[in-house]
């Protein structure tokens, strides 16, 4: 299968400060790719650069079509869903309203309603809390809601920013299991940013390692897992 997303020579800036320096990567369609790195390496910024949330230079292509320089809302409309750091749920709106917003750009009203029901089957806890304000959910439930909200777009590509952040290990395991299912059953390609490198490498098939805004190692997840340097600095054994 071909590449769904290609980035080359990607620079990113916050105001005058440059954060990414000529980053390049390629995501295989239907696969899960992870970006690893320490705090401040530019992982979150990479996702933001793909979505046009920061000023960038360089090229980003979705299925060959250039999307760099486009507005975030237009990139989203092309089928890239982003679960940002801090989850980006609308805390004062209800669970169901959050899901409806996820499908906001879709024209098939019936399909949106059917997808909400489908997600409720997958996440019964969201169904129980459908009329509750999203801010009252537990961390794990909010993460499930954030992923569900993103899936409502019927995305071709799902960007996930630290889905394990702040969650208990058991919940993290559950969430990663859900992500694996979504990837297998719905064929959604994923780009995953994670602090928890061993968890991410278990899920992903490809990985990139960022250091201070540059790609330093790239390869299959298995190869990276066995890389001396990665093992010592990020996996800790």
């Amino acid at each position: 299968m071909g590449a769904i997303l290609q980035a080359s020579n990607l620079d990113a800036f916050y105001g005058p400060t440059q954060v990414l320096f000529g980053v390049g990567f390629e995501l295989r369609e239907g696969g899960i790719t992870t970006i690893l790195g320490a705090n401040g390496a530019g992982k979150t910024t990479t996702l933001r650069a793909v979505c046009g949330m920061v000023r960038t230079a360089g090229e980003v292509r979705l299925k060959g079509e250039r999307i760099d320089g486009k507005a975030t809302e237009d990139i989203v409309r092309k089928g890239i869903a982003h679960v940002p750091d801090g989850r980006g749920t609308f805390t004062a709106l209800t669970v169901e309203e959050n899901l409806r917003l996820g499908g906001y750009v879709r024209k098939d009203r019936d399909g949106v309603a059917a997808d909400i029901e489908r997600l409720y089957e997958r996440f019964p806890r969201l169904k129980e809390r459908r009329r509750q304000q999203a801010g009252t959910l537990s961390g794990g439930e909010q993460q499930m809601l954030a992923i569900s909200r993103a899936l409502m777009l019927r995305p071709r590509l799902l960007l996930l920013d630290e889905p394990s952040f702040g969650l208990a290990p058991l919940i993290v395991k559950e969430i990663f299991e859900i992500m694996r299912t979504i990837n297998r059953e719905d064929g959604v390609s994923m780009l995953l940013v994670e602090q928890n490198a061993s968890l991410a490498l278990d899920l992903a098939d490809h990985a990139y390692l960022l250091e201070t805004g540059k790609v330093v190692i790239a390869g299959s997840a298995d190869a990276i897992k066995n890389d001396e340097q990665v093992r010592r600095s990020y996996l800790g054994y």
Partner: protein
Amino acid sequence: MEAFLHQVFSGLATGGIYASMALALVMIYQSTHHINFSQGEMATFCTFIAWALIETGFPYWVAFFATVAIGLVGGMAIQRILLRPVENAPILTNVIVFIGLLVIFNSTAGWIFDHTIKAFPSPFPRGTFFDTQYFSSHEIGSIMVTLLVLVALYVFFRFTPLGLAMRAAAQNPVSSRLVGIRVSWMLALGWGLAAAIGAIAGMMVAPIVYLDPNMMAGILLYGFAGALLGGIDNPWGAVFGGFVVGVLENVLGAYVIGTELKLTVALVLIVGVLTLKPTGLFGKVVVTRV
């Protein structure tokens, strides 16, 4: 007792108009955290357009709905053309734009339609409803129009995808973009709705206070007092506040302080709320951890 009831009821009628203005202020405040000082002048200008249409010979309700539509489109145009360029500018820049708009609308209204006081027709002349000694037809009619506007807005924000998108955009612009909402158009729509609500308020109050370029100056102050009293970030609180201010103003004006000091009630309320309870009665208290 009868006289007192009459004061309360006509207070409710003007309160409805303050409530509408309060709602128009809240509409813009919620998404931008700015108070649009030119809200009153925009409403007056729309009312002049309605007056001109009626003078040209259009039936009242045709003129009414045409004016609401002009307000909606005009409000959106103002946001797109004048405010979008200063979206990320410091707050004072925005304030200056608002004051500029206020002066422009006020002078243009005087220039085009002159400064003489004009009678504005009521769509509810005497005898159309069961007017009693407490209520005139116009008072009942304008309360009903206010309530209709409120219901329409409630339905819009609660049950339509566009209304949901507007609420989302006001709450969390970044996440809104991530679900594909065009946030800056939502701000424009907020301006359009505010201008349209203002236009309705203007057309409802003009038969009572007569139409001239300064018609809404005082009314905006009452509306602002109502919005602050109820909570500037809470539409329902603002509407409630508007009604309370209307009744307070009328009753205090009739029995306690006399009509000359009526506007003082609004100003005292504004200063009082801001110093004693800045969030208003139903406002959200925002606590920030530092």
